[in-house]
């Protein structure tokens, strides 16, 4: 695929191979039916899915490195400030009712830490004010972006 990336010029992306090795032992074959077969197929699907996700995150990592939209926590757990830093860094979209359409994609292990960070923002007046300011700014930037979707001279 060829495309032009704003500020980074023309780019070409080659298709990436996505494959996993499949091993079926002779001894397995007689019992490879019903639930056992389902389990094996599910395991292969999981491996393939994981392979695809790794490729996706590698591509995201490459892009965020380029655009500077990357935050290195240096091993520290995520807290309220860091969460707001992340929210400030990205581009947020809104639906027709004014609700943000952005979602966080995280590893399930990170869910409790993210919940704690979210509660910290909610309970700290200063962080909460900053969150509101970020939301206002993001909404204004979104409106500006939406207003640019037009033909001009």
């Amino acid at each position, binding site marked *: 695929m060829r495309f032009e990336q704003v500020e980074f010029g023309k780019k070409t992306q080659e298709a990436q191979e996505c494959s996993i090795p499949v091993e079926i032992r002779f001894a397995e074959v007689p019992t490879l039916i019903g639930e056992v077969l389902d389990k094996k197929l599910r395991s292969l699907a999981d491996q393939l899915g994981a392979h695809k996700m790794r490729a996706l995150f590698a591509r995201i990592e490459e892009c965020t490195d380029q655009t500077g939209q990357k935050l290195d926590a240096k091993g520290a757990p995520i807290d309220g400030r860091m969460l707001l830093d992340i929210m400030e860094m990205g581009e947020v979209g809104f639906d027709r009712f004014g609700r943000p359409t952005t979602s966080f994609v995280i590893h399930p292990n990170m869910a409790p830490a993210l919940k704690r960070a979210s509660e910290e923002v909610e309970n700290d007046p200063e962080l909460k004010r900053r969150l509101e300011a970020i939301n206002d700014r993001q909404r204004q930037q979104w409106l500006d972006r*939406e207003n640019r*979707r037009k*033909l001009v001279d």
Partner: protein
Amino acid sequence: MLAAEGEELLYIASHGPFEKGKDVITRAPDGGIRAYQLKSGDIRLADWREIDGQINNLVELPINIPQCPAGLSHMSFFVTSGRVDDVVLDYINTGNLGWRERRFLHGLAVIEKSQLVHRFVSVHGTFLPQEAKDFQLLLTLLLSDGASPLDKPSFSRFLLSVIRFEDSATHRNVSRSLSSAVLLTSYILGPATKCNNHWRQFEAWIVTASHILAAATKFVLSDELWKPSFDLSMMAAQRALDDLVDECKQRQQFIEGQAMVDGFFYGSRQLILSGLLSAWTLARRRSNQDPDVHVQRLVMARLKESFIWGESAAPFVLLTAFELEQQCMQPLAEEFVINYLRILLMFHGEGMRGLPDSFISTEDSVRFMHQIGEQDVDSFQGFSYSCQPMIDFLVRRWRRQALARLWDAITRLSLESSVPQFLWEWFIWKSDSAVADSCIPGQPQSWSALLQAATDRDISGLPALLVKYPVFTMFWLLVFPHRLTPATLALVDRSISRSTFSMSE
């Protein structure tokens, strides 16, 4: 077969009564002129008596075509795909004595089924598919239902197995394999011919013509090695279109198959007809023939009942728009394209599944749109192959306000073009080297920049033979809708705007 044996085709009788008993006229490798009359099936005395006058014309009347010097004597051949009865052969022998006495020294020679088979095997036998899977493909195509649409990807794969595309092939062998491809195409179309499926015939001949241009481009063949096969394919495609037009003129209604369920396919068929009739009349107009008013009315009538089944409908919409422009119905032509864009954008709106892209066949697209049966793809949301060519069409016609109203929705699409990296691959169905060019519409978009881009659209990256044969290109876009790009549309747009372009030059 004659072309493959080295005879140069000078004339093939077109529709209607043949020319003075001569269906085909050729120049043999020794320079002699040969005239053929073709029949099918066994010839008995009663059959012979019916065509006696034509045979006399074949032998006795001189050939009068520009490619043949006046006064030159010719050899006459009576060809049949069956057997000639002994009594008839006796008649011919007696006739030959009489003709020779009257100084028609060559008389009449007969070519029967057994000789045809022998000649076919010696000329084309080596070009039949060699691999079992390719031979199986030939049989599948031969035995397929002639009433159904052509399976173009399979047919293209078959042609790739017949035509010599390997780098080591000699030019002469490539040329002979092209003749074989033409002959095999006519065999494969037997069932379609029997049930008068003109669309299938048209598509098959254009796919064959396209693969001939692929070989000519890849090997840089000299004209004499590929042009006769190309001309034959184009002539057959044009004939199929002529037959379709004749059928449309006679029909009162356009329902096919089971009326109860034809509603799913009826609208798509009307748009296909509208596009094909438009292509026919555009080609006719450009070869300086008068446009047929009846066909112009047919285009208008089909247009009103048409249905956009997916992005592979785009070339049919555009060809219809070009024809409407020629009929001085500029606003209607532009409105038709704007409506296509509106529908495209509506289907890409929030919560919708998109329109099936240009690579999806008409049948699969209709199934997707009406949610018939199991679906291979859940969604085509967010990208379009036909949007940019449609924008170009409207920009070149200064429809700024119409585009301004649609621009917000357009910016939510990624505009795609599939561009083969090898010139010859433009002409085959599946290009392995094709690159997807992707761009996001400007936000905001400058009108003057858009105007300049659409007006100056660069066509230098297209194959020279595509540029050389604009009527073929017009037909080709209907058959290869995934080759619709801003550049190929600009090529057709420019050639239609000019006053001259011909079937083959």
